[in-house]
């Protein structure tokens, strides 16, 4: 089956998915703004973003449950924009499971197979149930299962159809940690074994990073950055990615000079350097960032070479011991608060609250962002009209996201 995928047959391989300039407007706001996306066949793709960022809407557009206002959706080389959900070679694991309450678990799982008149629907459904270790509940009704079991049934009901493209809408949300890990591995196995294309929507960055080959971070209806998990984490391109995916220390400053290899930025009286290839912009006002675990804490001023950036002295305002590491919050005059994660690799004296410390990090670990972090007031007056409007909008968007 060269490229052409039909809802009438089992997919022998995953299909690639393309979104071309897709825009989705709801009355009053735009959920997705001119989104273009290519997901190669057989990949495990995660759409990561906070609630209300448009990720579930994207999924529903691909599934055919919403119609795009503009743009085309192409699955396996075939334009499916104008087809209905039941005509698309796509299955969804819904966030709410949406298991049919009047059917047994087995009837639920074989539903899609029977609609496509596939032989041995019942046997195949039993196999799928065995895969999620629920063979023993085949004759029960969904209401008689626990939340985690229901979620696995929902997964089996979608996977059993061997769709060219499987859509996962936060499918592991209700599982406890152990089961979650187990299901993550199983999902990964199914995906690589059959070579299906998975599109996974989640707000859980850890889940996205551990499972997906490619992660796209979405915010306000646009994709901020897309790439392998390591790439996103190590060299974020926007302030949103830098702060949503893990934590970051961000410093805004003016570029004072640049060479072929290094861009120098002046911020708060310090010279911060970023490797040229890790900086998005090389002139004007830019943001330099560094991950907290890349920052070293020194209790006396160290002598550092040109490959390290040193700032300080600062004062430790908070130190919290978390076992593996200690998280420090260091107030550096004219720079602000800097977060440091220090591995607890040695016993003995550690910096305490109130201590004077110096901070340093390797220049190669710094990254330069295209934009500046949004100015956020520490304590926004919740009753101001502006704030109320923002809250209402967020609520509305969250509702639409769920709907």
């Amino acid at each position, binding site marked *: 089956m060269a490229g052409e995928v039909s809802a009438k047959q089992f997919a022998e391989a995953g299909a690639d998915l393309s979104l071309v300039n897709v825009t989705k407007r709801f009355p009053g706001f735009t959920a997705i703004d001119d989104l273009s996306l290519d997901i190669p066949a057989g990949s495990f793709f995660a759409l990561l973003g906070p609630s209300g960022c448009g990720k579930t809407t994207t999924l529903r557009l691909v599934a055919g449950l919403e119609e795009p206002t503009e743009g085309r959706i192409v699955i396996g080389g075939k334009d499916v924009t104008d087809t209905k959900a*039941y005509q698309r070679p796509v299955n969804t694991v819904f966030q709410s499971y*949406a298991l049919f309450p*009047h059917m047994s678990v087995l009837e639920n799982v074989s539903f899609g197979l029977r609609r496509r008149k596939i032989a041995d629907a019942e046997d195949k459904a039993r196999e799928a149930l065995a895969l999620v270790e629920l063979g023993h509940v085949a004759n029960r009704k969904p209401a008689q299962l626990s939340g985690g079991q229901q979620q696995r049934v929902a997964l089996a009901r979608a996977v059993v159809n061997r769709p060219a493209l499987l859509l996962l809408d936060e499918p592991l949300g209700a599982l406890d940690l152990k089961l979650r890990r187990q299901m993550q591995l199983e999902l990964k196995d199914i995906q690589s074994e059959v070579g299906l294309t998975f599109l996974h929507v989640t707000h859980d960055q850890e889940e996205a990073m551990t499972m997906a080959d490619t992660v796209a971070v979405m915010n306000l209806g646009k994709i901020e950055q897309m790439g392998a998990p390591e790439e996103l984490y190590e060299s974020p391109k926007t302030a949103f990615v830098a702060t949503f995916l893990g934590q970051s220390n961000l410093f805004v400053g003016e570029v004072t000079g640049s060479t072929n290899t290094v861009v120098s930025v002046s911020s708060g009286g310090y010279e911060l350097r970023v490797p040229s290839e890790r900086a998005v912009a090389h002139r004007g006002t830019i943001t330099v960032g560094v991950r907290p675990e890349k920052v070293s804490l020194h209790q006396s001023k160290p002598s550092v070479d040109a490959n390290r950036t040193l700032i300080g002295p600062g004062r430790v305002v908070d130190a919290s011991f978390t076992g593996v590491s200690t998280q420090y919050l260091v107030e550096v005059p004219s720079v602000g608060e800097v977060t440091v994660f220090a591995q607890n690799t040695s016993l003995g004296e550690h910096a305490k609250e109130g201590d004077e410390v110096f901070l340093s990090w390797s220049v190669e670990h710094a990254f330069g962002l295209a934009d500046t972090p949004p100015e956020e007031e520490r304590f926004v007056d919740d009753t101001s009209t502006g704030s109320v409007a923002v809250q209402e909008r967020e609520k509305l968007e969250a509702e639409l996201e769920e709907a």
Partner: protein
Amino acid sequence: MAFGAFQTAAPAATAATPASQRKSPIALWLLLPGILYLILFFVTPLFSLVITSFQEPVPGGFMGEYQNAFRFENYVTVVSTYFSHIGRSFVYAFLATFFALLLGYPIAYVIGVKLRPYPLWQSLALVILIAPFFISFLLRTIAWKQIFADEGFFVGILKSAQIIPADAYLTGTPFSVVFGLTYMFLPFMALPIYTTLEKLDLRYVEAGGDLYANPVTVFRTITFPLSLPGVISGTLLTFIPATGDYINASRDFLGSTETAMMGNVIEANFLVLQNFPAAAALSLILMMSILIIVSAYVKRSGTDDLL
């Protein structure tokens, strides 16, 4: 048993509260008025009805004078005399239920599902559906009699359009009786279906579409089965009273002697012929037949699974 089918609104999840197992004297006191009421107005008349149904005329007595006896013959006589009326009652009630379902389901679906995003229109549509209740059903039936009248506008149009022959008429025909029954019980059919459809989780419908079911299959395998509790309540609320109805089939309204149903026969025996045993026997036959049909129906549709 059969009454369980009416509980469409009560989810099964609230059942099995330990409070119901505690024998609280307050609960008994609260039940007492209801129990007394039922004993007084249901059990006592039922006994009286059973006794009456076996009575025989007082020898040499006046018309309407009866004495206690055990005349099972009464039952045999009424069944053989009014066999066609009994059959007609059930056929008309069945047809009315069928047409009410056919008309009521789409109405309920539109109000409960399609109008869900527009609460104002939804409320308005519900008001329109219930509005006829604000007018006496006698007046409404008389209005239909006027509309169906031989010299009326409606029949005139049908005749001039040659849809019906020039010598045809509508009043007093089975058509007008079934029409009247359907009309009268339509809200009783549509409202329970509406309450189940209004709660229908549309995510099931979406999931059905996602699993390759076209809209017709989605309706057949998901929407309709999930609305079955409402359909069962609606059909019972239509079928039971329609079987015993005596207004629509009456000569004074939409019927004629050829369309008389059991209700009309019972009325005639009680009020005109004063043959109380025959009327009582007919009433009991009607009651028992409905009970048997309804329990078979409820058992077959397996509502317990759905509720």
